[in-house]
């Protein structure tokens, strides 16, 4: 049976190093299988998050040979086995242990977003073409890979002022819900830092659900913000009516 060499980050917030493991390769095996093999046979305390092992829960995110991936969907036979497979935790979040990172920041950001609220008295009827667009956003499995690659978070560490692509997708899903009656454009501009995104599309590239994050969520939201706050006609209307939004 073929054998793969894995170099897995072992350590915590303070220190760590890559540790080598040899793992037998079976047909169709994925990187998460290899990590499970290490746990079961070589190092039972290797910390890895996972749940469904079918690309549905978004728990097993890591960086495989430098690429952010769901390890449950990364086939071993898609990687060159003549060199070690390097597996590291997501860079944009603090390491807890080994491949497990502290993603609690995401849950804090989520709390800032006002939930769906139907327009008062709205008739509860809508059609597939009304929801197609929103259903794309609702495919998000919260693997946080988009957050991990977004340079605003990864390089510039602007976690305080920027919500990241995951939450723009979430806001887009709410804003474009056919019956929703809440406006979140001010929030997008002032608290979620939508303007910091300069549409490099890194998020779209890594999304395992193939959500067109930049084109379908972020750009339309940017347009809404522009329409509302920078469009002279809107500005005039606001001035006259004295409304904040």
């Amino acid at each position, binding site marked *: 049976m073929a054998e793969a060499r894995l170099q897995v980050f072992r350590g*915590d917030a303070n220190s760590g190093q890559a540790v080598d493991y040899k793992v037998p390769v*079976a*047909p*169709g*095996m*994925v990187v998460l*299988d290899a990590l499970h093999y290490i*746990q*079961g*046979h070589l190092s*039972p*305390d*290797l*910390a*890895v*998050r*996972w*749940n*469904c*092992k*079918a*690309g*549905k*829960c*978004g*728990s097993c995110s890591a960086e495989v040979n430098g690429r952010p991936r769901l390890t449950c*969907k990364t*086939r071993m036979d898609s990687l060159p086995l003549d060199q070690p497979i390097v597996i590291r935790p997501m860079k944009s979040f603090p390491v*807890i*242990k*080994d491949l*497990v990172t502290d*993603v*609690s920041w995401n*849950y804090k950001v*989520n*709390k800032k977003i*006002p*939930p*769906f609220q*139907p327009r008062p008295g709205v008739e*509860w*009827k*809508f*059609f*597939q073409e*009304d*929801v197609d667009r*929103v*259903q794309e956003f*609702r*495919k998000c*499995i*919260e693997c946080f890979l988009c957050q991990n690659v977004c340079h605003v978070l990864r390089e510039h560490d602007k976690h305080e002022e920027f919500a990241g692509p995951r939450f723009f997708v979430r806001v887009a899903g*709410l804003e474009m*819900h056919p019956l*929703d009656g809440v406006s979140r454009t001010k929030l997008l501009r002032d608290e979620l830092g939508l303007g910091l995104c300069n549409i490099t599309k890194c998020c779209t590239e890594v999304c395992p659900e193939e959500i067109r994050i930049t084109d379908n969520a972020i750009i339309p939201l940017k347009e809404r913000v522009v329409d509302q706050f920078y469009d002279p006609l809107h500005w005039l209307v606001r001035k006259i009516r004295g409304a904040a939004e």
Partner: protein
Amino acid sequence: MSAPLADRFETHEHDVLVIGAGGAGLRAAIEALAQGVSVGVVCKSLLGKAHTVMAEGGIAAAMANVDPADNWRTHFRDTMRGGKMLNNWRMAQLHAQEAPARIHELEQWGALFDRTENGQILQRAFGGHTFRRLCHVGDRTGLEMIRTLQDRGVHMGFDVYMECTVVQLLKDGPRIAGAIAYWREQGRFVVFKAKSVVIATGGIGKAWPITSNSWEYTGDGMALAYEAGADLLDMEFVQFHPTGMVWPPGVQGILVTEAVRGEGGILRNKLGERFMEKYDPKRMELSTRDVVARSIYIEVREGRGTEHGGAFLDISHKPAEYVKRKLPSMYHQFKELADVDITKGPMEVGPTCHYMMGGIRVDAETAQSTVPGLFAAGEAAAGLHGANRLGGNSLSDLLVFGRRAGFAAAEHAKKVSSPAMDPAQLDRAEKEALEPFQRKDGENPYAIHRDLQTTMQNLVGIFRNRDDVHRALGALQKFRQRLARVSVEGSRMFNPGWHLALELKSLLTVSEAVARSVLVREESRGAHSRIDFPNLDPAWGSKNNIIRREGAAMALRQEALPDLPAELKQILAEEK
């Protein structure tokens, strides 16, 4: 509470503590919050990753959007017939009556189901359902449901304790007092003081190697309740879903949604025969899961299986675009994990351990267990599904009985005083949980787990017989002895080996409960198939198996099913 205790343990106090953050737990928490009490939710994974997220095909409810003739009576009848009449009739009635309202509620909280042409929720066909009844979102219904509930709960203000595992329920005399748990991240212990506890921890699939279940499904809730003195009911009924992936080896057991068959998928053996014609010519592929799973198993056993020991499931006669739209995650799952394009050719599928019909015995109206203040809902609870669950009835179960459990738990909490904490219980629980660190060079928890899984697969699988189950019980005894010698390496920081060592205790408890119940039920009914007793036995049709702890021993007895009221008998008698 004495000061030293508070010093020793991080402590949180809630009126209602919910264990588990899947559909049932979240729905219970939302309802309890709505009743104005304080609610804490403890879960082993991150919020939003619970098993509900993997549910695919849909939620069953007699909304009658697609088939106007549908109503709760038909749903009730389908559920009872699917469960081979072993269901708790009152639960089946409440479930059928309340499911539509629970789904409308989800929609009001922002869920977006697929639509009919006139703008209502679309419903699809599923096994054992007379009408097209499953509200769905492609094949990712569970994700839609959990995200909706999660956001609702977060904005209502429950406290969530993520990646935190309960090791023991606490008692104050006969009543419940809370739970002691550990943070998976640091391995520190934490105490939850609560007037009511709702168990919503799901099932036990990790006792088998070929399973659609995630690592969380180790039977914790059932074992915790059992240890706390609660009754377990009908533990012999374990559902093997007919269609799990069988190839490649790493994906064995991963679920292939019943929606494939609901959308017109056809099962064939390697000879190209549509074999369901032999086993259930009337319902064919949309027969109940117990029947389809057995049929595939028999085809394989008799040499008509596929190369990798399964059956072919084919949906490629439908237009490719339709398949991709209605079954997107199946399309990707097979393409990425098995190099199969399901719009062009068949999938290879075989039975996979999927769902536990048995579990904690509860009162139908309140979801309260036999321990005062301890409630249970969802897969952890028993009764609704009888001997076999219909597809789609699980998600509706979570909503209907999650809500009922949350409501009753809140009402209970309003009535009772704050429980007293017993430091001795906490000390014992902590000491026991840390023992694997004290031992050196003991048993490896992963090795025990593998052996347990092999035993359950080989001896307590789809087909059972007396000798096999006797051998399984003997093996379980040995696993207990090995578990007493288990040791773990490393620190208490996020240590999966240690976590598994603790979960093994639950797995062994529920496995033994399953084996004992399998052994005494000398008949075949629903998901329980005895080779040595292949027929239904009417005498067993009126009895539940009930398990309770007596000292250190597991005691098993039978109780008569409650009598069906005349008007429900009437519904069941109607031919349809």
